[in-house]
């Protein structure tokens, strides 16, 4: 955790909104499947809209059917990675390795291989897309940091609250900063739960991040980030 839940929220915001992995992941429609992209479509900071990735960073793909059946998928190692569907929910987990920031920019290399490193982190990312709802989607689907609605989010309208639980390795996790449309709205409690208010129709973008210490010499810290997408008419 980046801070104990007892630390004032304002302070938590300051501590936890400096996630430096800084890349968004999202899943675009591609017929009856999905294409995984990385870039800066949803985050507030600037950067290239599309940032290509090595398909080898993908660790696990989980598809849950409308009937609630869970399936592990091994997509072809091509860029952009295409994942066959349809899925009621789709979760992609990735490990993009170590990133190091220097005075001249940020590189996807370990700290000990870069001259003039200012800071570094090991990025573990996840992205979940919901198409429809089923009770099976109340549980976490993967092992990384994950955002899971506690009830059907497709019934919500602007002004309603989206109730989420944040898990890590399938267990509720406290102290995780959660943002709506890129704006930090709070930190999860001991039960991993947090409530966010729906502000608009269309694509809902909820993100969460967590800094963890690491003993790995290749990075100063481990940064876990995850995103949840779904559409409201």
């Amino acid at each position: 955790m980046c801070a104990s839940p007892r630390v004032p929220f304002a302070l938590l915001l300051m501590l936890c909104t400096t996630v430096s992995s800084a890349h968004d992941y999202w899943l675009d429609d591609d017929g009856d499947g999905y294409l995984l992209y990385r870039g800066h479509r949803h985050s507030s900071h600037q950067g290239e809209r599309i940032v290509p990735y090595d398909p080898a960073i993908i660790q696990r793909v989980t598809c849950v059917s409308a009937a609630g059946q869970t399936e592990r998928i091994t997509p072809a190692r091509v860029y952009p990675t295409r994942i066959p569907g349809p899925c009621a929910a789709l979760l992609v987990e990735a490990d993009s390795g170590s990133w190091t920031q220097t005075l001249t920019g940020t590189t996807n290399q370990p700290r000990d291989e870069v001259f003039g490193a200012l800071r570094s982190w090991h990025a573990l990312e996840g992205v979940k897309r919901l198409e429809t709802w089923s009770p099976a989607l109340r549980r976490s689907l993967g092992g990384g940091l994950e955002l899971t609605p506690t009830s059907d989010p497709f019934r919500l309208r602007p002004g309603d609250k989206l109730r989420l639980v944040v898990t890590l390795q399938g267990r509720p996790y406290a102290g995780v900063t959660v943002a709506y449309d890129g704006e930090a709205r709070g930190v999860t409690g001991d039960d991993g739960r947090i409530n966010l208010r729906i502000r608009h129709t269309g694509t809902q973008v909820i993100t969460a991040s967590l800094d963890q210490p690491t003993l790995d010499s290749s990075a100063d810290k481990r940064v876990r980030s995850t995103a949840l997408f779904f559409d409201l008419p």
Partner: protein
Amino acid sequence: MNATMTRLNLFAGRAHSAWLILGAALLLVVVPAAAHHGIAGLGAAGLMGPGAPIEAATSATLPRGEVLLYGKLDSARYTTFDPDPANPESDYANYWMAGVGYGFTSWFSGYVFLPYHSKVDEAGGFDTHGFADVSLFGQLGFTYDRGWRLIPENESLDDLEDWHFTVFGGFTLPTGNPNLRDSGGEIDPGKSTGFGNPSYSIGLTATKMLSPRLTFNQELSYIGFQDYRYADGNRTLFGEEVRANSALVYRLYTNMERRFRLDLALEAHYLHLGRDRSNGTPELATGGDMVYGLPGIRVYWHNVSVGLGYKTVLWKDLNEQDEQQGGEGTERHRLLLTFSALF
């Protein structure tokens, strides 16, 4: 208690002990405490959460396990009417307040307040100084989110936009001195620094963020007193106090990196003071109704909050109004300075 004072007896204000009211949600707190002589209003707010008024009570409980330190100065300067130096009137009063709060749970906080009062007359009058009655308060917080529930330990900014409510209650302990005597050996209950007997208070607050920057706050509260027989054999029962305090707080500026926030507050306070009774007989020139206006600013920096307000009477209807001086409703102004820090 009713702090209206007559011009004849030259009351300068009463030794009201502190009573508290809590304020809002997350982190920094503003406290009230003490009837018209320094109401302790507690309010907590994070850098982005609901704002807290300068004096009115708000609907925030303290975070579980956290300690609040609070200080307040309510400096009242009174209008005088009689230029005759042989008849000195109440000039000013400083009501200091120190307090400590603790969050027993996320929905229940407890507070202790120690007031110190200075009541000063014009030259030749009777001045009193001293610690007043210690007060103890408890506050229970609720929110409305798909039904009533106690304030949870963890709330997001979106949760903080919901209606929040508190119920509070407290009482004073007669630790002050109710029997201060002037140079003539007379006891003036209005100049004492203690009530002699416990007083009690109850109240409600409601708070709602109307927008990400604007917070509405409402307080309703009551303070009751007990009859006390002074050392000179006379008895006094101060009149009850009823308050309806409304406030709007606007978050003017926030700097997250510096953990700094600046709020503007505008408060309207209605106060009803019951008529005092002396030896069982209603006392003239005591009690009445009034409305105060209170613009102010509040600054938050890290875990500290400082509020500054200027309070004036906008309207009043006092009993035997022409005979009252040196109490509520007859101030030229009040200056309020509050400090709070959360650890």
